[in-house]
């Protein structure tokens, strides 16, 4: 059950009224989370500057219809997912996009392994249907509970589970033919 924080409604109302202080508060509070979601969905920081702007404009534009049924975080997730979905649908994703992957592993070898593993993971994700990819990334990579993924995608829990299952199966088939991807997925 999602909890609505009263401050969220107040903040949303002030943003809708054009209160610049409130808008900046919301931007500062949520910017890192929006970035993390977008990055885990796309696997690259390449188009991030444009997408972050689009995501926040979408958030501010749509806050007028926020009814407070869910936490504002879920609302923001939903806007972010919409922006990512449009981008994934409208562009061919290039395989080299995942070069900017970060790793906290200390050695160069481990870094190279992680980099290559993530590159192959997103290469495999590029082959999936956009909705399957988003459901999988939000749940398996971002760690969101299935119910929240469903809320973010305006989908039922059952449909979301099916999307995650199908994405997972497609990746397993791919990993069976790709030892680097298989090792990476086992190691993480």
């Amino acid at each position, binding site marked *: 059950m999602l909890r609505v924080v009263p401050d969220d409604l107040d903040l949303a109302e002030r943003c*809708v009224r054009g209160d610049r202080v409130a808008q900046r508060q919301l931007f500062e509070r949520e910017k890192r989370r929006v970035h993390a979601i977008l990055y885990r969905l796309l696997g690259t920081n390449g188009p991030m500057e444009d997408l972050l702007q689009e995501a926040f404009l979408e958030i501010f534009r749509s806050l007028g219809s926020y009814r407070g049924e869910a936490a504002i975080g879920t609302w923001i997730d939903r806007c972010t997912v919409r922006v990512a979905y449009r981008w994934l649908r409208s562009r061919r994703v290039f395989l080299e996009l995942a070069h900017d992957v970060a790793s906290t592993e200390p050695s160069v070898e481990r870094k190279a*392994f992680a980099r290559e593993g993530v590159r192959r993971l997103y290469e495999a994700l590029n082959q999936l249907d956009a909705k399957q990819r988003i459901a999988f990334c939000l749940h398996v990579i971002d760690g969101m509970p299935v119910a929240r993924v469903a809320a973010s995608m305006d989908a039922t829990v059952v449909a979301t589970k099916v999307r995650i299952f199908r994405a997972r199966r497609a990746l397993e088939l791919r990993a069976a033919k790709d030892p680097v991807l298989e090792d990476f997925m086992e190691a993480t």
Partner: protein
Amino acid sequence: MSDEKIRVDVPSLPESTWQRVEKGVFERLPAEVEGPRAVPSRLPIWIAAAAAIGLVGICAFVWWPRHTTAPIALPSPSTTVPASTSHVVTTDAPASVSFGESSLDVGPASELVATGDDGRGVLVVLERGSVKLHVPPRAGRPPLGVQAGNVRVQVIGTRFSVERNGSDVRVHVDDGTVRVTNGADVVDVHASEDWPVAPPVPTVTHSALPPKIDDEALFERAARSERTDPDGALQLYEGIATRGGAWAPNALFAEGRLELDRGHTANGRRLLELYLKRYPRGANAADAKSLLEK
């Protein structure tokens, strides 16, 4: 891979990127948000409908006289603004505004939003231009703050000015002391001091060490520019590979792979063979072999 999670670390964005994102959003935002918008409702529709009539009266009382969202026109050089939320925009001429007990001299071509009051504290958000503030001693009341981009200036009682031109922010203190916060850096700026402090003029000596080259950053740059500037990327990879540091193996492999991608098969194969010769057990050895077999 039944139900386990996959770990993908999110590389942080440089502060300059965040500043551009913030600027882009808030430059485009006024036009997007202005105009009649539905105010979010936390109530079921039937309650909201019943309350609507009352709200009309409340809105007339609260919004109309105080001009909380529309920019305040400043016809005269000195205006007193009631303490609430105020949006001040100047064109060619400067203007003076009183906000609670504090006075703000707003420079020409400036825009700011001030919110709060003396009892709860005042926050001035400087969108662009400059503002000079005279803040009486707060005597235990909450401080006054100025937010200019990522920089926050907090004051107890003093006279100081803040200028903002995009992400370039400057603070000058006339009296007292203010605390400037910029990300993780917190600096106290005293009377007659400026922030940021002008960098000292570098002195060139014959014994100066050459600047340290950050191969990891160069590698990242090369990887990002492969599609837009492959020649530049190749040059960067070559430089890293030649220096022979920790990133040399990755750079040599990437150089070979990129050459193959570009259809320069002979050179690509030569580089990958060189990679395997130098680093037979390197992290990319299996990939290099696989590419050579194709």
